[in-house]
């Protein structure tokens, strides 16, 4: 089926190639102590050999994706008069952050087949292979809903500015509760819902300075970290006590 479409598209598409070239305002996000979110400007252009094909406009779709991690979604129900977690679905891999920006409404952007192939839409970006429990779609929906509310998942329809079918730009707001890791920005150039070209680039999101030191120490040498935390706490307690005594005397 896919092969057939690819074959057909070879006939339909113009003979000349169209390529997407893009860059980001920053390829590195540093999480410092005063980190309160960040905004990445994304811009690019379409490189083409021939004239612009006017009957079907090109569309640009940009996704920014955080590192994938397994997650458990739990559902509450009223039992014995109180609301408690009754069942859970384990999702194999869900991006910790996922933003989509498009040039047009979703139905004009990409076909379901292409979406399935490239994992573009948010539900497709979440992989829940093992989750075959009845109603597990509700759990995936809940995951998307909760992360949407936290700005961790964003769908920004029509937020990509596209000039003369050539230059495009958008911006993605990264919230303050960001997790570190390798983020990737993907660019899809589509025509009539079919992907014409793709491009991918990396964003390095990392804790720096003291943040990094504490985080690494807590994972690599937890006992040292724990003892250090206690030492800091106790000495601060003693110092404040001593300072208060001097202050009163």
């Amino acid at each position, binding site marked *: 089926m896919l092969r057939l479409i690819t074959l057909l598209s070879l006939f339909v598409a113009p003979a000349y190639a169209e390529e997407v070239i893009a860059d980001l305002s920053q390829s590195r996000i540093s999480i410092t102590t005063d980190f309160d979110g960040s905004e990445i400007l994304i811009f690019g252009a379409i490189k083409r050999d021939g004239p612009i094909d006017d009957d079907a406009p090109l569309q640009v779709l940009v996704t920014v994706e955080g590192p994938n991690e397994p997650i458990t979604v739990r559902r509450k129900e009223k039992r014995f008069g109180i609301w408690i977690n009754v069942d859970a679905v384990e999702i194999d891999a869900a991006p910790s952050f996922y933003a989509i920006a498009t040039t047009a409404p979703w139905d004009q952007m990409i076909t379901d087949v292409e979406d399935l192939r490239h994992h573009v839409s948010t539900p497709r970006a979440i992989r829940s292979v093992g989750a075959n429990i009845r109603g597990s779609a509700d*759990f995936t929906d809940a995951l998307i809903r909760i992360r949407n509310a936290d700005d961790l998942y964003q769908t920004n329809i029509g937020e990509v500015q596209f*000039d003369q079918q050539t230059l495009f730009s958008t911006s993605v707001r990264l919230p303050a509760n960001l997790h570190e890791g390798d983020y990737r920005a993907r660019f899809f150039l589509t025509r009539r819902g079919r992907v014409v070209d793709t491009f991918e680039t990396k964003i390095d999101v990392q804790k720096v300075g003291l943040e990094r030191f504490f985080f690494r120490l807590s994972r690599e040498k937890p006992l040292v970290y724990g003892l250090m935390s206690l030492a800091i706490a106790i000495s601060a307690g003693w110092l404040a006590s001593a300072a208060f005594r001097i202050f009163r005397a």
Partner: protein
Amino acid sequence: MQLQHLGVEDPAPTGVRDAMNVYLPIAEVSVNAFLLLGLGGMVGVLSGMFGVGGGFLMTPLLFFIGIPPAVAVATEANQIVASSFSGVLAHLKRRTVDLKMGTVLLIGGLIGAAFGVQIFNTLRAMGQVDLLVKLSYVVFLGIIGSLMFVESLNAIRKTRSGSPAKRRKKRGLVHKLPFKMRFNTSGLYISAIPPLIVGVFVGILAAIMGVGGGFIMVPAMIYILGMPTKVVVGTSLFQIIFVTGFTTLLHATTNFTVDIVLAVLLLVGGVIGAQIGTRLGAKLKAEQLRILLALMVLLVCGKLAFDLLVQPSELYSLGSNGGH
């Protein structure tokens, strides 16, 4: 074109809020620094006044501002060490710490804490840790709060009616059990088993609820062990710093959930608050102090019970499944 786009998307300047926010490295959330300092200070005053770690108030408050429960519980243990340390120094100076009783309570506490962290980790993997924590709060705060409230009211009524509030020397279980020890500072000659059990119990609570356990240890010392009110606060603080210190290490090494930046911010406010609280506590009458604490305990209990009974707006919740 980009500028125009940006202008449309981000109309509200957020400069003032941004400057005060601090990113917590372990919790991985950004929180207002002054909010944390203020919470620490407020809880610190209570800590010094009542001889409770204040964790019973702080842990739910941390949940409320969006700190992950596991991080809140573990970090709170660390913060309690600091806020109690300055308090215990003040009490040691005033010789209101029964070191021998404190040590017996501590041995029990360490055993309890180790056991409590095990329970915590098991239930965390099962996704029931929030429920465990909240139910524990409702049950313990409800019982302790009501008991203290009734007791304090009776005590106040007695002093008002003119009859002397004489402390009865009860010869209960604490005198009948074996392994009797003499506790000179408290003026007691009782079995070591009840304080040991109290210690174990408090240790479990410290690990599960992210509390020092003062709110249960103080009444237990007064009503079960029969210790004089004067040494109760100092002795409980003495036990608390070691048990919460041990709990901190256990959480840091098994869950990686101790957030030092969060702890430092809370304790900066906390240590100063504790000093003020200790002095306030020395000026107020014991009954007034207890009725105030009882009311506060009941308030937190009521709020938590309400949250469990009312249908939450979001029935689904997310949890990492790193536990298995």
